[in-house]
C-alpha cells in the first residue's frame, strides 16, 4: 500500500516536472518586467511601464540615436525646418501599413496627433504646448506649424514614445465611440511596429507576434514572438532568469544582483539612465533661503560614499545634465565633500550652533532612505540635525506642491520626457516652473538662469547652444538649489544567448526588439 502510494506520488511529481521546466523556445523572447500596465493608449499612457510594448508595436516619425546623439528617421524619411523655425515639414516613408491593414500616410499622422491633442491628457502637453496646427500637404508630406518658435528641441520631442506613437486612423475612427476611442485603445495596439499584440492577460502577460507586413522586412535575425511577463517580486525574477524561464529580466534591484553575478549563462547589465536623483532644497523659507546654507549643505554631502547606495554601479553627477545627453560635460565645476568648508559657511550664515532640517524620501524610490541616513550621520558632525521622513508618491506630491508644506529637503527623481537637456533644466530650474506648473521643487528663481534657458531653447547653432547650457549649469551650481547626486542606474540582465540588445538611456525601460535575437 505504502509503496504503491509512493509510486503514485513519484509519477505525479514526474508529470509536474515536465510541465514546470520550460526553458524558452528559440524563436520566442520572454522578458520579465516589474512595471504595471494600466492602459496602452498612446494618448494617455505616461508611465515607464509602456516602454516595452510601445517600442514593440508602435512607431514614431523620428527616433533618437543614443550613440550619435542625433535624430534619425523612422516613419519620416526626411524633414525640412523653415529658417525661422515656424514650420516643420516631414516627408514620410512609403509602403508602410498598420497592423489592421490601413495605409500609413500624412492623414494618418494628423488623425493620430489630433486625437492626442483633443484628448489632452497625460503626454499631450508635449504637442499642445508647441504645435499650432498639423496640415496634410500631400499623401506623403505633413507640416507642423509651431505656436512658439523657434523651439529647437522639437524633433527630440517627437522622438519621445509618450504621446508620439502613431496609431491606425481606421482603428481611431471605427472605435471612436463617445470617448474618442479611449476604451478601445486601452486594450488594443494598432500601430506600424514590427510586432503586433496578440494577447494581453491583464496583470500577467502580453504576447506579441511578428507583423508579417512590417516595412522593415524580416530578413536577418529576429525573434517571432515576444512575451512580456509581469513579475512583481524581483527575487523571484532573478530565480526565473537563472533557471532559463526568462530571457531578459528588467529591473532587478542593484543590491539583489549579487545572487546573479557569476552565474553561468547569465549576463548582468547595469546602465545609467537619463533619470537623475537629487535633493531639492527649499529656497523660499527657513535657513535654506540663505544661499550660504545651501552651499554648506552641498559641501557636506559625501558624494563618493553615496554611490554605495547604488551598490557602486554609478558615479556622482557632474552638472545637472546626465551623461550621454548633449550638454553633459565632465569638466564642469562641481561641489566636493568638504566638511570644513561646510562648517565655515554655516558659521558665516549664523548657524555656528547648528540647526534642524527635515528631509523627505519617497517610498517607491528606496535609495532616498539610505542617502538620507548616510547624510544624517555626516551632518551630525557639523551640528545639523537631519529629520528623515518617509512619504508616499502621493504624499510627496502633496507636500512639495504646496509652499507651506514643502520640506526643507526633498529627495526625488526626475525622468526626462524627451532626450534633450531642456527636458531636464527647464522643468526643474526655470523660475516659471514652480509646482504645480512644473517640477522646480526648490522654487529656485534666478532671472539669469531663466534668460539663459530661454535662449538655449531658441539657439539653432549646436555649439552656441552647448555654451549656453554650460553657462546655465554653472549658474545653477552657484545658486545651489539642489544637491545633485547621480544618474539612476537600471539593471537589464539576460541569458547569454540573447544578442543584439542596445541599451537606450532615453528610453531605458524599452527594448530594441526588432534587433534582438537568440543564438
Amino acid at each position, binding site marked *: 500500500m505504502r509503496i504503491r502510494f509512493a509510486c503514485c506520488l513519484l509519477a505525479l511529481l514526474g508529470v509536474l516536472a515536465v510541465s*514546470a521546466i*520550460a526553458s524558452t523556445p528559440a524563436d520566442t523572447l520572454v522578458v520579465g518586467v516589474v512595471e504595471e500596465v494600466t*492602459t496602452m493608449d498612446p494618448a494617455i499612457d505616461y508611465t515607464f511601464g509602456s516602454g516595452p510594448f510601445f517600442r514593440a508595436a508602435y512607431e514614431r516619425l523620428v527616433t533618437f540615436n543614443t550613440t550619435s546623439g542625433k535624430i534619425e528617421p523612422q516613419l519620416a524619411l526626411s524633414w525640412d525646418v523653415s529658417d525661422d523655425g515656424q514650420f516643420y515639414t516631414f516627408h514620410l516613408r512609403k509602403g508602410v501599413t498598420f497592423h489592421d491593414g490601413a495605409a500609413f500616410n500624412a492623414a494618418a499622422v494628423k488623425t493620430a496627433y489630433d486625437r492626442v491633442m483633443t484628448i489632452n491628457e497625460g503626454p499631450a*502637453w508635449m504637442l499642445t504646448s508647441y504645435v499650432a496646427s498639423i496640415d496634410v500637404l500631400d499623401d506623403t508630406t505633413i507640416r507642423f506649424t509651431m505656436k512658439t518658435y523657434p523651439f529647437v528641441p522639437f524633433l527630440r520631442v517627437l522622438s519621445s514614445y509618450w504621446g508620439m506613437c502613431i496609431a491606425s486612423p481606421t482603428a481611431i475612427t471605427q472605435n471612436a465611440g463617445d470617448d474618442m476611442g479611449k*476604451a478601445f485603445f486601452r486594450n488594443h495596439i494598432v500601430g506600424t511596429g514590427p510586432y503586433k499584440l496578440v494577447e494581453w492577460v*491583464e496583470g500577467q502577460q502580453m504576447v506579441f507576434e511578428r507583423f508579417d507586413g512590417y516595412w522593415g522586412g524580416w530578413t536577418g535575425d529576429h525573434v517571432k514572438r515576444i512575451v512580456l511577463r509581469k513579475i512583481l517580486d524581483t527575487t523571484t525574477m532573478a530565480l526565473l532568469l537563472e533557471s532559463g524561464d526568462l530571457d531578459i529580466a528588467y529591473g532587478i534591484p542593484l543590491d539583489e544582483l549579487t545572487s546573479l553575478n557569476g552565474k553561468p549563462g547569465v549576463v548582468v547589465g547595469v546602465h545609467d539612465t537619463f533619470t537623475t536623483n537629487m535633493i531639492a532644497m527649499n529656497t523660499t523659507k527657513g535657513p535654506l533661503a540663505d544661499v550660504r546654507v545651501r552651499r554648506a549643505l552641498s559641501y557636506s554631502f559625501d558624494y563618493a560614499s553615496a554611490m554605495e547606495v547604488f551598490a557602486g554601479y554609478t558615479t556622482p553627477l557632474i552638472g545637472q545634465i546626465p551623461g550621454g545627453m548633449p550638454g553633459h560635460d565632465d569638466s564642469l565645476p562641481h561641489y566636493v565633500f568638504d566638511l570644513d568648508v561646510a562648517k565655515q559657511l554655516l558659521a558665516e550664515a549664523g548657524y555656528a550652533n547648528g540647526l534642524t532640517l527635515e528631509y523627505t524620501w519617497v517610498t517607491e524610490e528606496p535609495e532616498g532612505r539610505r542617502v538620507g541616513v548616510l547624510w544624517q550621520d555626516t551632518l551630525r558632525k557639523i551640528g545639523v540635525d537631519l529629520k528623515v521622513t518617509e512619504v508616499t508618491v502621493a*504624499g510627496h*506630491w502633496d507636500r512639495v506642491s504646496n509652499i507651506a508644506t514643502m520640506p526643507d529637503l526633498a529627495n526625488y527623481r526626475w525622468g526626462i520626457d524627451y532626450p534633450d537637456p531642456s527636458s531636464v533644466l527647464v522643468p526643474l530650474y526655470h523660475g516659471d516652473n514652480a509646482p504645480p506648473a512644473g517640477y522646480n521643487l526648490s522654487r529656485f528663481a534666478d532671472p539669469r538662469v531663466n534668460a539663459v534657458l530661454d535662449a538655449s531653447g531658441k539657439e539653432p547653432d549646436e555649439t552656441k547652444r552647448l555654451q549656453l547650457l554650460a553657462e546655465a549649469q554653472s549658474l545653477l551650481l552657484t545658486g545651489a538649489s539642489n544637491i545633485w547626486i547621480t544618474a539612476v542606474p537600471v539593471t537589464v540582465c539576460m541569458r547569454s544567448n540573447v544578442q543584439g540588445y542596445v541599451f537606450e538611456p532615453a528610453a531605458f525601460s524599452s527594448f530594441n526588439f526588432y534587433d534582438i535575437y537568440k543564438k
Partner: protein
Amino acid sequence: MARYIVKRLALLTITLLGVLTLTFFVSHVVPGDPARLAAGVRAKPEQVEALRTRLGLDRPLWQQYGRYIAGVVRGDLGESIRTRRPVSADLAEYFPATVELTVFAMILCLLVGIPLGILSAVKRESVIDHVSRVASTAAVSMPTFWLGLLLQLLFFRWLQILPATGRLGFYLSPPTRMTGLYALDSLLSGNWTALGDSLVHLILPGAALAASSIAVITRMTRSSLLEILSLDYVRTARSKGLAEKAVILKHALRNALLPSLTVIGLQVGVLLAGAVLIEVVFSWPGIGLYAVQSITFVDFQAILGVTLITAIVYSGANLIVDVLYGVIDPRIHY
C-alpha cells in the same frame, strides 16, 4: 432558519454601509491628490483640473459620498483612476484569481489540518504528534512571504518540479472565461492542458498561504478532540464495545469540530489578508495585488471596491459558519 438568514442578511447590509462609510472618509483623509496622480505629475495644472472635474473630485466630500453610495446601490462602483475603467470590471478581472487561490488554500487547510489534528489527538505524544506540533509552531511563526520564497527556492530552483509565478505557463492562453477561476474554467471547457497547468501553478502559492491556517486548524482540532475524548459519553461509547474508529469519527469528532469550525470561518479572513503578500511574491494577479497598487495611487473607488468585496466575503463566511453550527449541533436552533 430561513428567517434567521434573512435577518442576518439585513444586518449585513448595515454592516457593509458602515464599512463603506468608514473607508470612504478614512481614505479621503490620507494625503495625496488623486487627480494629480491620475493626470501624471508632469501634467499641466489645467489638465489636472479638467480631470478633477470629470472625476467629480471637485465636489464637496459629502456630495461625493452621496453619489458613491447611490452608485453602489445601482451596482455602479465608480471608475478606477488608475486603470481607467469601471471598478466592477477590475474586480471581475482580479477577484476570481484571489478566490481561486483562497479556495485552493482552504481545501488544503481542510484536507490537511483536520486529519492531522485528529491523528495528533488520537496518537497523543507519539512521533506524529510531536512532529505536527513543531511544524505547526514553525508554520504559524514564519512570515508568509518568507515561506513563499523558501518554497520557490526549494521546489522551483532546486528540485525544479513546480513553477514559481503566475497562474499559467507563458506558452498557454487562459481557458475560455466563465468563472474566471482558471482550474474550474478549464475543467468546464475540457481544456485538460490548462487544467493541469493551472493546478500546478496553484500548489506553491496555495501551500504558502495555507500553512499558518493549517497549523491553527490542526492545533484546534487536536485540543478540542482531546477534550471531548475525555468526556463521559465517549467512555460510555467505548464501554459499549464500539470500535475506536466509530467512537472517534462518529461520536467525538462531530462535537470536536464545532470550535474548529469557528476557527475555519475566521481563517477565511486570514487567508484573504495573507493573499496580499502571497500575490506579490508569486506575481498572482489577484485582488490583493490590485489593492496594494490602488492604495499607492490613492485610487479611492478601487480601494472602496476591494473593501466592499472583502467585507462581503468575510461576513458571508461567518454567516455560513453560523448556519453550519445548526447543522452539526442539533441543540442549536435559530
